């Protein structure tokens, strides 16, 4: 019984240069209390995926196929948009630049109060103060009263991030989406935020969708990770599997490109750049940069293969099959 079920979600955009496919046929299911990471480079579609889930797509984007269900209720599909009834209440979102996700002209306490009043009207005025204090304490903020009475620009970057997370979770949502919320932070603050997020979901009642471009960071925090490339999900599975025995050449190349302390030599990037996908794309999106590609990879459309409830991939010649056939990688 999964909390969030995404089946074949596809989102297209109308741009000045034509129609562009931003997300292509995504399959994902998130269970209760699970931490799922979505990893991909910029332009892979991961942020659009997050925004689609809360119904915040730009005006020129639309869902052209697939559907999304939350708690067994279809919230997103062609001509269905119920995401706005649950966002804030059951799905909380933390944005990339926390400082800018807070209204600069309003005090912190006003912003938290507002969220509570709208989504949890049953909480009485007297309890609100206690709730606010409690949430800030959970965020390990030392001086809750001062923070509550401050404006965003009067707080440090780390404090702002905590406030942003606090606002997202104060309504006790069952799913929290963190969209690159560590990207703009320095390493120390990053570690603190990751620690906070881990605490959040430790109760087993909250699921977390952690979006990042940092594969290692995702592997530290998440149970499962999904790798995205050029609008598609190319692989998904438990973190240890994906990192140690990746199935998709892109995942493998991504892992290889991460610099490590004990290996010297030139950095290993992936030659070429990610393509923009039109609606009529043929073949695998990664074929032109893949070291294992065959002529067939350029012509045949590859569909998603689910190997289990937790894993899947999109490749004609998955690496594990190759290694099983004992071919040198």
């Amino acid at each position, binding site marked *: 019984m999964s909390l969030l079920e995404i089946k074949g979600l596809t989102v297209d955009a109308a741009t000045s240069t034509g129609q562009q496919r931003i997300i292509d046929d995504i399959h994902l299911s998130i269970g209760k209390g699970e931490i799922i990471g979505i990893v991909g480079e910029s332009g892979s579609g991961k942020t659009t995926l997050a925004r689609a889930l*809360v119904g915040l797509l730009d005006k020129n984007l639309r869902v052209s196929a697939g559907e999304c269900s939350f708690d067994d209720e279809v919230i997103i599909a062609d001509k269905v948009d119920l995401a706005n009834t649950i966002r*804030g209440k059951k799905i909380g*979102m933390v944005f990339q630049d926390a400082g800018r996700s807070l209204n*600069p002209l309003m005090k912190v306490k006003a912003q938290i109060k507002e969220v509570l009043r*709208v989504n949890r009207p049953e909480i009485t005025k007297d309890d609100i103060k206690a709730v606010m204090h409690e949430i800030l304490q959970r965020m390990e903020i030392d001086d809750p009263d001062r923070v509550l009475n401050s404006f965003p620009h009067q707080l440090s970057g780390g404090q702002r991030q905590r406030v942003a997370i606090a606002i997202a979770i104060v309504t006790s949502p069952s799913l929290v989406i963190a969209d690159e919320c560590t990207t703009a932070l320095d390493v120390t603050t990053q570690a603190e935020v990751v620690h906070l997020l881990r605490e959040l979901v430790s109760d087993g009642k909250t699921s977390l969708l952690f979006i990042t471009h940092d594969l290692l960071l995702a592997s530290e925090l998440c149970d499962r990770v999904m790798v995205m490339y050029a609008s598609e999900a190319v692989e998904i599975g438990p973190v240890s599997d994906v990192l140690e025995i990746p199935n998709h050449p892109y995942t493998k190349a991504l892992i290889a490109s991460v610099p490590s302390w004990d290996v010297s030599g030139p950095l290993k990037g992936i030659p070429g750049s990610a393509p923009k996908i039109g609606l009529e794309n043929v073949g695998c999106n990664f074929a032109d940069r893949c070291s294992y590609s065959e002529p067939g990879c350029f012509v045949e459309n590859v569909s998603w293969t689910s190997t289990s409830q937790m894993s899947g991939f999109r490749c004609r010649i998955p690496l594990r099959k190759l290694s099983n056939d004992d071919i040198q990688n």
Partner: protein
Amino acid sequence: MLGPTAPKAQIHLLEHQLGLDKSFIQQYISYLSNLFHGQLGNSIQFESSNVSMISTRLPNTLELLALAMMIAISIGGPLGIIAALKRNSIWDRLASGAALVGQSVPIFWLGIMVILVFSVHLRLFPAGQKNGFSSFVLPAVCLALLPMAQIARLMRATISEVFEEPYIDAAKARGLSTKRIVFGHALRNASLPVITIISLQIGSLLSGAIAVEYVFGWPGVGTLAVNAIQFHDYTLIQAIVVIGVLGFVFINFCVDVLYGIIDPRIRDATK
């Protein structure tokens, strides 16, 4: 002033009366000291104190200005907000179109045409003179048209820009309704540039008031100014300019204070 054939003795007498025979510095000093005593000299036309002439008419002008500004804000503001929320809809085009037309039509001509249509032909409203509330309508609307359109246009642009800001997205992600976002968040942030524009508009509103008052025969400072211009009443003109500038400085000061109240970042920056 005395005419080209006046005898020298008379010229000297007038010069002495006007203080023109003293040196520049002395004249300036006596002007300033008079100013501090609330004296701005006498009108050449009317031989009475400029200050009294201005002060009897000033309330009329202020009433007209206030009414015009109220109309401009109360119609322009909501129009701009609707235009921003429903981009490319009929409201949007209406606001932009009205703004463009308002900025293109000479205001005095508009006044004349309006009188022609609404007063003379349709007999709906009186053509000025101050005579009860209905006489306020035409001149105030004429005066308000341009600032109303400008406010609408600016509000639309500002709200649209504010809507692109991340905290609006974040507010939506928190489940807030559009109404709440517009009034609770967007409007507050959008009001800053709008207030700046309004303070700038006061300047053009004064220019417009001169034209409108004259065309509608409104008993205000504007008509006084035009008459002074036409009769070369320099002292009166000077007095009006001084009052006008002082008033403008005062309004700007108020706007600065208002800015500090609305935006806490400015408050902190000035500490």
